């Protein structure tokens, strides 16, 4: 029974961890499928996290009896909109002003981490006392578990003992998979990412698709930041740079999932497993632990190499990934 519990705990923490990067990865897949390589994912996850925290902090502070439902709505809206605004800035610079995508993305990451940690530090200062902000009402809403089902023994604990954003992440991933592969707009979006010139000739509005894909994609990634602050760290903030590493892990997951949202679901949990497994592997010293933590990245590199190696057409990165498209410069 002891072993069973340990395994259960490991799986639970993997799923919680995986959810954060699943949001980031699914958002980035949508963006990359339209041909925009947005390396600002860590930055927009930061923006989503801090905005939701600031939003509900002021609501909870100024209202005598905060309504849980309103709390959740404010948090979600703030996270999605702030991250999407980051995406809009990225799109404006790279699509309209034709700045380089890699450089703009990295700048967005620097900016986002600066804004989030700066205001996070201020908030922790405001809250006085322990020096750590806590938005209890809201985080309770996000951590609410499904009654009855989550008590149903091991299976119930494994499947139903999480805050509801865990299921939202899966739903968004499945919807994105369906959207990209089964709808006309999804097909257009992929065409824009594969060959924008051809898509343009076919009458698809390349600029519009790229703007929308990037803004919606970053908005979804911002929800990863929301889940992180509200559920994973229980409505608190710490300036420890964890989110930046999570953001890069999300970028890695995009490759691991070979640009398919449905693969990102199990890939995210696998990354979570690799991240937490060290706690449960006996005999790991601190040194070997650090080497062990390389695994997600090494595995990603291997996947990247193999996909380029095998040259299966459906497994390749979008053909125009990272390339700007200007009709005049064909």
């Amino acid at each position, binding site marked *: 029974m002891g072993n069973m519990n340990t395994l259960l705990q490991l799986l639970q923490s993997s799923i919680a961890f995986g959810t954060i990067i699943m949001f980031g990865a699914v958002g980035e897949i949508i963006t990359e499928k339209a041909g925009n*390589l947005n*390396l600002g994912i860590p930055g927009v996850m930061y923006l989503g996290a801090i905005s939701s925290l600031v939003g509900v902090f002021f609501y909870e502070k100024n209202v005598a009896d905060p309504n849980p439902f309103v709390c959740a709505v404010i948090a979600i809206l703030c996270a999605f909109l702030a991250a999407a605004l980051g995406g809009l*800035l990225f799109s404006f*610079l790279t699509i309209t*002003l*034709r*700045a*380089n995508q*890699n*450089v*703009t993305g*990295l*700048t*967005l*990451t*620097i*900016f*986002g*981490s*600066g*804004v*989030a*940690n*700066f205001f996070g*530090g*201020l908030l922790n200062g405001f809250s006085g006392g322990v020096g750590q902000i806590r938005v209890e009402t809201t985080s309770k809403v996000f951590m609410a578990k499904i009654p009855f089902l989550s008590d149903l023994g091991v299976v119930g604990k494994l499947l139903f003992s999480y805050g509801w954003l865990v299921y939202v992440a899966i739903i968004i991933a499945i919807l994105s998979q369906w959207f990209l592969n089964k709808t006309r707009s999804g097909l257009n979006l992929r065409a824009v990412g594969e060959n924008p010139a051809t898509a343009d000739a076919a009458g698809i509005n390349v600029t519009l698709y790229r703007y929308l894909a990037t803004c919606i994609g970053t908005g979804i990634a911002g929800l990863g930041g929301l889940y992180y602050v509200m559920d994973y760290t229980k409505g608190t903030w710490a*300036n420890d740079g964890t989110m930046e*590493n999570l953001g*890069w892990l999300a*970028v*890695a997951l995009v*490759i691991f999932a070979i640009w398919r949202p449905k693969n990102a679901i199990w890939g995210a949990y696998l990354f979570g497993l690799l991240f937490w497994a060290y706690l449960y592997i006996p005999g790991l010293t*601190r*040194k070997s632990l*650090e*080497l062990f*933590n*390389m695994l997600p*990245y*090494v595995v*990603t*590199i291997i996947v*990247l*190499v193999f996909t*380029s*190696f095998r*040259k299966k057409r459906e497994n390749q*990165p979008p053909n125009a*990934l*990272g390339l700007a498209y*200007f009709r*005049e*410069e064909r």
Partner: protein
Amino acid sequence: MAKVATHKREPLVRIAKRDSMPLWQSVLIRVLSIVLALVVCGVIIYMLIKVNPLEVYKSMVEGAFGAFREDYKFFNRRTWITIRDTMMLLCIAVGLAPAFKMRFWNIGAEGQILVGGIATAACMIYLKTLPPVLLFVCMIVASLLAGALWSLLPAIFKAKWNTNETLFTLMMNYVAIQLTSFFVALWENPFGSNTVGIINPQGKEGWFPPVFGLDYMMNVIVVMIITIGMFIYLKYSKQGYEISVVGDSENTARYAGINVKKVIIRTMLISGAICGLSGFVAVSGASHTISVNTAGGKGFTAIIVAWLAKFNTFTMILISLLLVFLDKGAIEIASKYDLNDYVASMITGIILFFILGSEFFVNYRMIFRSKEKGVQ
């Protein structure tokens, strides 16, 4: 030509590439963008702390170049630290220049710096009994090799199978960070501190020696040699020419008989080696220790420096100085007005957004509909 019935109205603005722009104009646009960015930052800072922005900018200058007292000397300790950090950033950017000129997105500088730093620290720890000259040769060679090795892998796969180098080098950074954590645990001193501590604090084996009594003069000398060398290499050597041809069009290069694979691998080896060497400068010439913060995001910032400078290594000096100045200045504001250090990243981000945006106005011109007449 027959008129097309469904002729759409001409759009309000058309965008066309500029052929060229006088130097003074392009400089003016960039300076204006920085001024505009500083105004925006000033407004934000004013809203946060209600202090006159000019006062704030004065503190920024003081943060980077020392407090203006009566006995002010320009070359004070703060100025030297600004110079030291500028040289570090410059060294990485110079390392990235050949790869970027070849349109090979080496995002892996962060990792290449770290492995170069690990190699340097290893020499300082295990070979400190060697005579100083020999020790320095070992450190330089080890850091060059480590950086080159770290970039070799993505280069080979790019050359042979066209593996996406942006994503590959990005992943290599995190492998390097974990590797650094491993060595920090291995060399931990004192035990339990989770840091390596200052290496060789007594004998200063493997530390950059002071030149003319100045602690960081050696950093300037080493980095300036690399900067000038790289400028000449890119501009006047045959290999530098091959790099720019491959960067412009791989097909043209192949047609002209250039061995593209060889150029890719060779250039990435050089790029990685110099980034590794900047790890040597960071460890031996500045911090005298190694940690996961040895690179501290400079590998990413340097990408922006190299890109904005259009691969011109001398322009990189100015941009590096600007970014280090902003960083030091913002940290000074943070400590003076009781904010936190992250205000530096926020300000840097805003200014970089403006500079990136301004490039558009340097490279393109907008043609408004009303002005349009005659041909085209």
